[in-house]
C-alpha cells in the first residue's frame, strides 16, 4: 500500500527522475527574473507557495460549476463584441439593410442593428449565436451544479453561505438572461416584455406604479430597451462577477468537498495539485467549453430574429415561448385557473400574481432556506467535507427529486402547445392533466425515490454481508449450483461504511426530576422530533465492525445464510428494533444479488 505523496512532492514531469527540481530547469531559470521582480513589488511568493499546490479532488460532477463559470466568461467576451454594433434604441426607422424580406418596414433601431449584426457584420451571426447558446448553457450548468451540490449534501456546514451565493447567482442569472432576450426588440422579445408588463401590473397595491416606473409610462414606451440594456451589460454582470468572486473565494477557503473513499476523511482532501494538473485540466476544460459552444453556434441556429419580424403590439406568433429557464414560470401561468377577485373598485389578479411573482419567490426562498431547515432537523453543528452519496440520505434525495419533478411539470406546461401538436393530444387535456400533475407527481416521485434510496442502501449492506459475485459457480454434492461470493475489497468496504446514518431525535423530557421546565418540551421541539422521524425513521441500521468481521469470515468460510444471521443477531450489540430491521433487509435483498453485483462502487 503506497503512502500518499506529500504536498511538497517534487514538481517533475516524470516519476523516474524525482531529483530534477534541484537542478533548475531552463524554464525555471527564465522565470526567476520576472518572478523576483513581481515578488519584490507584490509579495506574491507567499501566496503562490500556499496556493499553487492546493489539492482538488477529481470527479466529473465537480466540473459542472466550471461549465457555468466558463459559459459566463464566454458570454462576457461575445457580449463585448455585440455591444460594438448593437444600438439600444427604440427609435423607429425604416429598414434599408441587406435582409430583403424586411426591406422598407418600420422597426426599432435595436431590431435593425440586430439584423445588421446577423447579416452585414462578418462573424456577427456567429457571435450572436455564441452569446445565446452560452447564456442557455450558463444557466443550465448552474442548475446542474446546484443539483449536484444538493444531492451530495455539499451545502452543509461550513458551506451554507456559499449555497446562498449560488442561489443568488441563479436568480440573478435568470434576470440577466431575460433582459438579454428582450433586447433585440423582435416579435418574441416584445411578446416577452408584454408578459412582464402584465406580471408587474398584477402585483397588488403597487403593481401599476411599478409598471409605470419600469416602462417609463405605458407599455411599450420607448425606453425599456435602453434600461434593460444598461442592466444587461453593466449592472447585472457586475453583480454576477462579484458573486462569482465570493463564491470561488469560499471554495478555495473551505477546500473542495470529496466523495467518501479509502483515505478520504472529513479532515483531508485527496486529489491533484492546482499547479500543474488542475491548471491544465481546468484551463483545458475552459477551451473545451468555449470550443464546444462555438461549434454549436456554427452548426445550430438559435433565435433567428429576422424571421420573427420587428415587435408590433398587434402581432403574435403561435409557439411564443421564453427561453428554457423561464419556461417553468410560463408553464405555471398557463396552467393556472383564472382566479381574480374584484373587491370594491380594485382587482386582485391572482391568476398572474400567484404563478409568476409568488411562485418564483417561493422557489428561491425554498432553495435558500433548505440547508437551514435540514440543520434545524438534525441539530448537526459539525463541519462536513465528505459528500453524502444520495442514497445515504433518502429523504433529502427524495425531496430533491420531488422538486425536480414538480419543476418538470411546470416546464411541460410552458410547452403545452408544442406537446399538443407534436403528440396529437388535446391542448385542453394537457392543461387539465398538468394542473393535477404538479401536485400529484412530486408526491409519487418522493415516495418512489425514497424507497429506491433505501433499497440501494440495503443492497450495499447485502454486498458487505454476502460479498461480491465472483463469477465462479460451485456445484454442491447434492447437485445444486451456487455462485461463490468473495468479500469486497477493504477500500470498497470502507467506502460503503463511511457514512454516518442519523438517528431519529428523541423528545427530551420537558421537565427535569424536580418538575422544573427544561424548556425542551415545547411545540418547536416536538415539531423537530416529528421532522426528524420523517427524515430518518426508516434508514437501515449501519453494520457494526463485529458484524462485518463475521460476514467476511462467513463468506470466506462458505457457511450458510442462516448461521450467519443467527451469529449476527447473537452479538447483542444492537437494539431489538434494529435487529428486525436488519433481518428484514436481509430477506428483502437476499434475492437481489444480481442488483447488488452491479451497484457501482
Amino acid at each position, binding site marked *: 500500500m503506497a503512502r500518499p505523496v506529500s504536498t511538497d512532492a517534487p514538481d517533475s514531469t516524470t516519476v523516474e527522475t524525482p531529483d530534477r527540481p534541484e537542478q533548475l530547469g531552463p524554464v525555471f531559470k527564465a522565470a526567476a527574473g520576472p518572478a523576483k521582480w513581481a515578488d519584490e513589488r507584490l509579495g506574491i511568493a507567499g501566496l503562490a507557495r500556499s496556493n499553487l499546490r492546493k489539492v482538488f479532488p477529481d470527479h*466529473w*460532477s*465537480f*466540473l459542472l460549476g466550471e*461549465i457555468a463559470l466558463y459559459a459566463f466568461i464566454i458570454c462576457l467576451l461575445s457580449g463585448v463584441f455585440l455591444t460594438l454594433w448593437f444600438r439600444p434604441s427604440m427609435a423607429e426607422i*425604416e429598414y434599408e439593410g441587406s435582409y*430583403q*424580406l*424586411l*426591406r*422598407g*418596414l*418600420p422597426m426599432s433601431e435595436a431590431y435593425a442593428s440586430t439584423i445588421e449584426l446577423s447579416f452585414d457584420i462578418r462573424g456577427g*451571426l456567429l457571435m450572436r*449565436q455564441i452569446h*445565446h*447558446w452560452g447564456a*442557455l*448553457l450558463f444557466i*443550465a*450548468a448552474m442548475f446542474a451544479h446546484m443539483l449536484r451540490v444538493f444531492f451530495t449534501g455539499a451545502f452543509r456546514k461550513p458551506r451554507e453561505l456559499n449555497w446562498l451565493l449560488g442561489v443568488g447567482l441563479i436568480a440573478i442569472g435568470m434576470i440577466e438572461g431575460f433582459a438579454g432576450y428582450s433586447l433585440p426588440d423582435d*416579435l*418574441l422579445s416584445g411578446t416577452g416584455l408584454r408578459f412582464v408588463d402584465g406580471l408587474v401590473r398584477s402585483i397588488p397595491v403597487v403593481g401599476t406604479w411599478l409598471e409605470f416606473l419600469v416602462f417609463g409610462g405605458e407599455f411599450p414606451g420607448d425606453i425599456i430597451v435602453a434600461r434593460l440594456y444598461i442592466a444587461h451589460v453593466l449592472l447585472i454582470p457586475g453583480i454576477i462577477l462579484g458573486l462569482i468572486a465570493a463564491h470561488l473565494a469560499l471554495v478555495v477557503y473551505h477546500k473542495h468537498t470529496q466523495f467518501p473513499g479509502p483515505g478520504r476523511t472529513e479532515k483531508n482532501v485527496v486529489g491533484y495539485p492546482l499547479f500543474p494538473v488542475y491548471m491544465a485540466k481546468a484551463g483545458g*476544460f475552459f477551451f473545451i*467549453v468555449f470550443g*464546444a*459552444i462555438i461549434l*454549436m*453556434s*456554427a*452548426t*445550430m*441556429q*438559435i*433565435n*433567428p430574429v429576422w*424571421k420573427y*419580424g420587428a415587435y408590433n403590439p*398587434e*402581432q*403574435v*406568433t*403561435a*409557439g*411564443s*415561448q*421564453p*427561453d*428554457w429557464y423561464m*419556461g417553468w414560470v410560463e408553464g405555471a401561468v398557463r396552467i393556472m385557473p383564472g382566479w381574480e377577485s374584484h373587491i370594491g373598485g380594485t382587482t386582485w389578479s391572482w391568476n398572474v400574481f400567484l404563478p409568476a411573482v409568488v411562485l418564483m419567490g417561493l422557489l428561491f426562498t425554498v432553495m435558500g432556506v433548505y440547508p437551514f431547515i435540514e440543520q434545524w432537523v438534525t441539530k448537526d453543528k459539525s463541519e462536513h467535507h465528505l459528500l453524502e452519496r444520495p442514497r445515504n440520505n433518502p429523504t433529502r434525495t427524495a425531496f430533491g427529486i420531488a422538486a425536480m419533478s414538480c419543476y418538470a411539470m411546470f416546464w411541460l406546461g*410552458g410547452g*403545452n*402547445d*408544442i406537446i*399538443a*401538436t407534436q403528440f*396529437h393530444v388535446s*391542448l*385542453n*387535456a394537457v392543461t387539465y392533466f398538468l394542473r393535477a400533475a404538479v401536485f400529484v407527481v412530486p408526491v409519487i416521485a418522493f415516495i418512489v425515490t425514497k424507497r429506491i434510496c433505501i433499497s440501494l442502501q440495503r443492497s450495499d449492506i447485502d454486498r458487505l454481508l454476502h460479498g461480491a459475485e465472483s463469477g465462479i459457480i460451485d456445484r454442491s454434492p447434492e447437485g445444486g449450483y451456487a455462485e461463490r461470493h468473495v468479500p469486497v475489497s477493504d477500500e470498497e468496504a470502507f467506502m460503503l461504511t463511511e457514512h454516518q446514518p442519523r438517528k431519529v431525535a428523541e423528545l427530551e423530557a420537558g421537565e427535569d426530576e424536580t418538575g422544573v421546565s427544561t424548556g425542551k418540551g415545547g411545540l418547536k421541539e416536538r415539531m423537530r422530533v416529528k421532522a426528524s422521524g420523517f427524515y430518518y425513521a426508516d434508514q437501515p441500521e449501519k453494520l457494526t465492525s463485529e458484524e462485518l468481521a463475521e460476514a467476511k469470515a462467513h463468506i470466506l468460510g462458505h457457511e450458510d445464510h442462516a448461521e450467519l444471521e443467527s451469529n449476527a443477531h447473537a452479538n447483542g450489540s444492537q437494539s431489538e428494533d434494529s435487529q428486525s430491521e436488519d433481518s428484514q433487509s436481509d430477506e428483502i435483498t437476499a434475492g437481489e444479488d444480481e442488483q447488488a453485483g452491479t451497484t457501482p462502487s
Partner: protein
Amino acid sequence: MRLLSSRRRHPATRALFLALALSLMGVLYATVAPTAPSSAEGPSSTQIEEGQALYRTGCASCHGLNAEGTSQGPTLIGVGAGSVDFQMGTGRMPAAAPHAQIPAKPKVYSDDEIAAIAAYIGSLDLGIAIPDIGQYSMEKPARGQFPAGHDGDVAYETALDEYYRVVAIGGELFRTNCSACHNYQGTGGALPGGKHAPSLEGVEGRYILEAMRIGPQQMPVFSADVISDEEAAAMITYLEELHGQRNNGGLGLGGFGPVGEGLWAWLIGIGGLICFAIWITRKGVRAK
C-alpha cells in the same frame, strides 16, 4: 418616389406605396405572364356532366344527391369551385369520417377529376372560383427581362428592390393575420380541443389563397374585399421566399423556437460537456 422621400415615414405613404407597387407588378405581370391555363376559358358542359357523375358516386353519400347536404356533410351549393379544388386538391376530401378537423392527405382523385367535380359544383351557384396564378403569385424580376448594360443593371436592381418591398409588406400582413395560428414561419400551431393549424410548408400558393377565401373548417375567412388578391399574393410570396431561404445559422432544430433550443442546450450542450468532464476526470488505463 425619391423626391418624396421626406414623406416616406408617413404610414399612409406605405399604403399608397403598396397600391402603386402592386399595380406596377400587375402591369409587369400582364406583359410577361404566360397565357392563363385553360380553366380561365370556363368549363365545358361535358366537363360538368363528367363532374356530376363523379360527384354522384364519390361525394353524394355525405353531401346529398344534388349537393343539398345531409346530416353527414354540409351543402355544397354556393361553396364554389375553389372550395372543391382546395378540399380535394389537398386530400382533405373525401374524408374518412366527419371530424372536427379533417386532415390533409395524398389526394385521391386525379387533377382532371377534381377539375370536373369543381366545375360541376361551380355550376350550381356563385361561389369562390379557382384562382388564376396571377392572384396568388408575384413575378420575380429576372435579369433577362432588362436590357444588357449598366442601365439594365440599375433597372433590374430597382425592380428587384420594389419586388422585395412588396414581399416585406406581405410578411407584415402574414404576421398580423396568419402567424397567430400558423406560426411566424408557417409551421403551424395548436388550437383548442386537439385541433391544430396545419403547417403551410410545401403547400401550393393556390391552396393557401383558396383557404383564405373559403375559410375551411375552423379557419376564418379572409375575403378579397378585405385582403386583396395583390396583398394575398404578397403574403404567399413572402412565405415562399421564407421557405425557399436557406437557414443562416445552421440546423433549424425543428423551428419550435425557444423550447426546442432549451432542449438542445441540455442534450447537446450540458450532455456533451459532461462527456468531456468524465473523460477529463476518469483515471486512464493503468500499466498493471
